[in-house]
């Protein structure tokens, strides 16, 4: 294991300190927790937005805390859900009197811990609601999930719901748009090489020198198929087709594309994938409204990428374009 770290058991705490040091005016840590909020939290009158999950997916989730996106992110240990007490503190910290909304990636651990925190907060009289994002079309159940997993598409849900809440929407309105966004979004990933959880010290799986895995999860949990590496064009086609097969996209409908790097993939290769995704959609008469290429939801230093498509309507377009001041999502 080659990593630039101090103590493998201290990586999350060290990272949080490094983040707060980088953005002292934008972010603050809720003391005694691994939760990060906007410095101005709670924003009175605004629905507070909380997301989070295991660490190791940076810039998710703390990078998406800021005006126009999240109010707080709760960080668990690497690839491990944060516990309800931490999430509960974040909910309390961002409650501006009009309720708090949770954006949860569909992993059993995340769902149970966030829902438990939700109950704790409700017992305190805070109104809390949630959306569970399950954009990954790869597998129905996985080693970490009942039902589809939540992966990179979650970032676009943060963006859209963040804009809605920023515009002063009620908790109910926020939930409605969150469900629309989550319902319109589909993703799938692939990997060439594994990643190593610092505390584990060794890669969580192995792939042969000529092998790739389609449908892999953002913790390295198994996907659909292992097979010899093909060209970028073939990979892009396979991922796009698997998404489209699961999506009702008609001619002339508009989408946003996200080509997301899993950690160690050169940006060059993400653009090479985007070239083909763009071409395939264009050939099918689908309108590409906006494209995001970069590292949005990583799996430590895994090599690979995911493709996400989000079907848009006027409301979603407006919210996608609204201003965000989160460190990792500026527009």
């Amino acid at each position, binding site marked *: 294991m080659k990593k630039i770290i101090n103590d493998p058991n201290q990586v999350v705490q060290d990272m949080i300190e490094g983040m707060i040091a980088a953005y002292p005016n934008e972010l603050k840590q809720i003391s005694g927790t691994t939760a990060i909020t906007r410095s101005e939290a709670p924003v009175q009158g605004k629905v507070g937005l909380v997301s989070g999950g295991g660490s190791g997916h940076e810039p998710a989730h703390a990078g998406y805390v800021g005006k126009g996106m999240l109010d707080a992110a709760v960080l668990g240990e690497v690839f491990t859900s944060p516990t*309800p007490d931490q999430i509960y503190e974040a909910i309390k910290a961002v409650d501006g009197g009009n309720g708090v909304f949770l954006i949860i990636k569909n992993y059993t651990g995340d769902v149970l811990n966030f829902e438990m925190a939700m109950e704790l907060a409700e017992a305190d009289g805070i109104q809390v609601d949630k959306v569970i994002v399950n954009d990954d079309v790869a597998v129905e159940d996985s080693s970490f999930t009942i039902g589809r997993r939540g992966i990179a598409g979650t970032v676009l849900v943060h963006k859209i719901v963040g804009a809605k809440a920023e515009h002063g929407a009620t908790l109910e309105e926020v939930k409605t748009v969150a469900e629309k966004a989550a319902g319109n979004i589909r993703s799938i990933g692939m990997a060439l090489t594994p990643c190593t959880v610092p505390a584990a010290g060794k890669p969580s799986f192995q792939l042969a020198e000529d092998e790739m895995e389609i449908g892999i999860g953002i913790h390295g949990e198994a996907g659909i198929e292992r097979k010899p590496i093909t060209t970028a064009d073939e990979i892009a086609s396979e991922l796009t087709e698997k998404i489209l097969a699961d999506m009702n996209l008609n001619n002339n409908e508009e989408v946003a594309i996200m080509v997301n790097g899993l950690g160690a993939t050169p940006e060059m290769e993400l653009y090479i994938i985007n070239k083909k995704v763009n071409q395939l959609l264009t050939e099918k008469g689908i309108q590409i409204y906006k494209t995001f290429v970069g590292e949005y939801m990583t799996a430590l230093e895994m090599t690979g990428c995911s493709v996400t498509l989000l079907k848009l309507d006027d409301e979603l377009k407006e919210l996608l374009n609204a201003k965000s001041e989160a460190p990792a999502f500026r527009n």
Partner: protein
Amino acid sequence: MELQVEDTIQWLEKSNEKIQQNKDYLTALDQAIGDSDHGINMSRGFQEVVNQVKSKQYDTVSDVLKDTAMTLMSKVGGASGPLFGTAFLRFSMRVKGIDPISQDAFTKGMEDALAGIIQRGKAATGEKTMVDVWSPVVDYFKGTTIVQADEVAQTAKKAMEQTKEITATKGRASYFKEKSIGHIDPGAASSFYIFEALSEVIKGEG
């Protein structure tokens, strides 16, 4: 049976002892059908519970169980943390204001605890989870006028062993589906230790 604050603390201590002794076994069970952390999770969580409840003075069983719940919730992690946390929290809420805990109150607490696990985990019996141990144990309490310590342990043990035969559909093990047959569910095993510890406390007391 009747549970005082000291009995409750003893129950938690005995549970912790068993979990610490079987930490590697629990992890091995989770390795077969999960992500190999159940022993680590439970040993970390129950050690904290014991540290916590032994460092404080309690007036009511409900308070002991509430602290247990909060500690499990924040220290166990994974799926089992919120599940055990919910169980003890619901138990604590149900027996609030009752001291000591009568058999009737205990049974009601157990009923709520089970309901909490089921609600939290969206699980039913027969899905190869801790529910498959909690559910028959609760049934035993509900169907018995005078609880027999040994029968608590035996009921739990038999239920735990039966999880071997089930195909997993919930939680991490569900991913392994067919592969999961022949393996005891880790959360069922740790639940068994908790009820075995309870049986010993009841025995010592009665």
